[in-house]
């Protein structure tokens, strides 16, 4: 550990926001599962580190059908939530890592060179989630889609969504618990019948699949249409070719599951 790193361990959300400031030169440490090894291997030597673990930002709140999840809620705590979030969270890493990794850290993870990170992004995109974050222009609330491009520059405070009428998740099996999921698709249907679909692992971050949503009435066509919404990439765990072949299959599975839970 670089002794020169100045460490902040705020005791409240207000203190965390103040310490984060405009986010310049500060690395946010949620659970530590992604950032700590980066520092151990000296790929990351931050001037300042903001450790959120004692800031009281964890917990799942329900107000009517609105669910709000605090930034430092553990990924493991989402396991019992309905699809797509529960199955998606259960598919992250292993018992020990799910119990340490935080929701905020997962959503704000940068894209890894070797594998897609941010397993939960797709599930939250399908849920039409809203992010409350702090940073340069103070506290702001916006859709996750708008937040994702800024996720490395702002401090996520919490994320919320309306419970869907139905949800579905389909992901590729992982050869080992430590592998990131090469590709996964999440879907949600709201009470008025609107279907939202999103993929994790089909680009730099979680990706909405609007063309697939538009064609969702026909599962086969929906699956094929999804290919127009993404730019599959090659990395250490899967090729772009493989992702292109599998994405329509996963979309079809999700649409089928959504229909069956009608």
């Amino acid at each position: 550990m670089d002794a020169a790193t100045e460490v902040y361990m705020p005791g409240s959300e207000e203190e965390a926001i103040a310490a984060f400031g405009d986010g310049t030169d500060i690395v946010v440490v949620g659970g530590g599962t992604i950032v700590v090894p980066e520092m151990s291997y000296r790929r990351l030597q931050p001037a300042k580190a903001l450790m959120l673990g004692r800031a009281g930002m964890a917990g799942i709140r329900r107000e009517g059908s609105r669910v709000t999840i605090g930034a430092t809620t553990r990924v493991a705590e989402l396991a019992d939530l309905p699809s797509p979030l529960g199955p998606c969270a259960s598919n992250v890493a292993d018992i020990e890592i799910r119990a340490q990794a935080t929701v905020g850290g997962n959503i704000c993870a940068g894209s890894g060179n070797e594998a897609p990170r941010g397993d939960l992004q797709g599930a939250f995109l399908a849920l039409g989630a809203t992010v409350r974050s702090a940073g340069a222009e103070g506290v702001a609330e916006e859709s996750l889609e708008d937040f994702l491009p800024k996720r490395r520059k702002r401090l996520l405070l919490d994320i919320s969504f309306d419970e869907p009428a139905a949800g579905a998740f389909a992901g590729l099996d992982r050869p080992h618990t430590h592998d990131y999921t090469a590709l996964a698709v999440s879907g949600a249907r709201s009470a008025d019948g609107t279907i939202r679909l999103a993929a994790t692992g089909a680009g730099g971050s979680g990706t909405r699949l609007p063309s697939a949503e538009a064609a969702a009435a026909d599962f086969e066509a929906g699956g094929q249409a999804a290919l127009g919404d993404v730019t599959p990439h090659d990395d250490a765990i899967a090729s772009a070719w493989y992702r292109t072949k599998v994405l329509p299959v996963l979309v079809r599975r999700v649409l089928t599951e959504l229909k069956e839970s009608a």
Partner: protein
Amino acid sequence: MNLTVNGVTHEIDSSPLTPLLDVLREELGITGAKAGCHQGGCGACTVLIDGEPRRSCLMPVGYADGGEIMTVEGLGTLDDLSPIQQAFIHHYAAQCGFCTSGMLLAGQAYIDHGGTDDEEAIQNALAGHVCRCTGYSKIIDAVAATARGDSFDLTETAVGKHTTMATGGAE
């Protein structure tokens, strides 16, 4: 910061960002937790924090401040091995031994949380732990035996009379 390791409280000088593993091994000289990959990928550094299994290589020590840490040294002694340690010996569940302390602690936490001898449940509990000697069957047998409360005469084990291998590879 204060860290209680195996019942002994230590004052810690390291930065709160230092991985707990490095504090245990380098500042305190407690070497039971192994530095396998140092990036959360192998499970060899697993310790119990307030009874919960955690990767000590990923855990900033600042988050363990005030917690009760148990390493393999706290599980039992050479003269008084804990049931899971006896089961690992009886079932020949350690080969090179590098993954063993992590396996033992993850297995212990599984049993402490009411785990049974169900093979799939044990696999799930140990899923984050890599054994490069590929001794998984014996490790799962040992955890299952502990969950059942099997008892062993380790003097017999030493000559191989009651191991899974000697009884025809029951796994």
